[in-house]
């Protein structure tokens, strides 16, 4: 399969994550959307590295770091979600706007 095929898959994955993060009504969904976006990015990284002879392993290593960050992000984000839940009694983003000017 060519590079375009992978890029195409990655693009679709990215768009689905994007819609999900923006349109769903629960913080958990927003986070899931973000995970999809990260996966799409990782797929790009790896695909480009594969189709770019002489690139070494940098693409994959980059992807590993992204995974590490994703793990950290998920941990922190979910902790925040818990905190939000205990404070607002809800995890709907619409219910939270105390950061407003």
């Amino acid at each position, binding site marked *: 399969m060519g590079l375009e095929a992978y890029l195409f898959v990655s693009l679709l994955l990215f768009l689905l994550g994007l819609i999900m993060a923006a*349109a769903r009504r629960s913080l*958990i969904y927003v986070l899931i959307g973000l995970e999809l976006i990260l996966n799409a990015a990782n797929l790009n990284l790896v695909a480009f590295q594969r189709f770019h002879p002489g690139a070494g392993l940098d693409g994959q290593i980059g992807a590993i770091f992204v995974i590490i960050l994703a793990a950290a992000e998920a941990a922190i984000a979910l902790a925040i979600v818990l905190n939000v839940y205990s404070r607002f009694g809800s995890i709907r983003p619409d219910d939270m706007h105390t950061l407003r000017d």
Partner: protein
Amino acid sequence: MTGAELSFAVFTALALGGALVALFETSVVRSAFAMFGTFLGVAGLYLTLGADFLAMTQVLIYAGGIMVLYLFGLMLTKPSPHERNLRRIGLAAALAGALAILLLVQLFTGEHAGMPAPENLPAPEPTAEAIGLAFLRADSWLFAFEFASVLLLATLVGAVYIARRRPEPRAEELS
């Protein structure tokens, strides 16, 4: 259809299908599990790209670690049931669509000079040892690697600190 094409098709279907289900599913738990499917599909795609170590990592960390994290999160919060699960999807879809069109146009009309056809690619080699060495060699990624471990440690502490239950004033009392 060659074996490579077949596996690509299967994993793609798994990844995108999972994503679609996650997007439209009303139940959070099911949505999370659909995400699990996506993770696995992406891991398979890594395999087709010859990134065996990365595929394993994906399965272990994402499917194993992060997934569990989400399930815990779900269990500790009360889902908000029986409501329309998507709002303003039109706007999001429009933005995403515009972006998609732009990128697709670029994808299929742009030139990809220097990219060899898939059949000309060298056969993939096992990568685990190379990655391990790259992480541990001082002139390579050692610093970033160590930094990542520090980050994870900080995350661990931070997450515990944030999620700790405190007798907090509730929102109504704040405002």
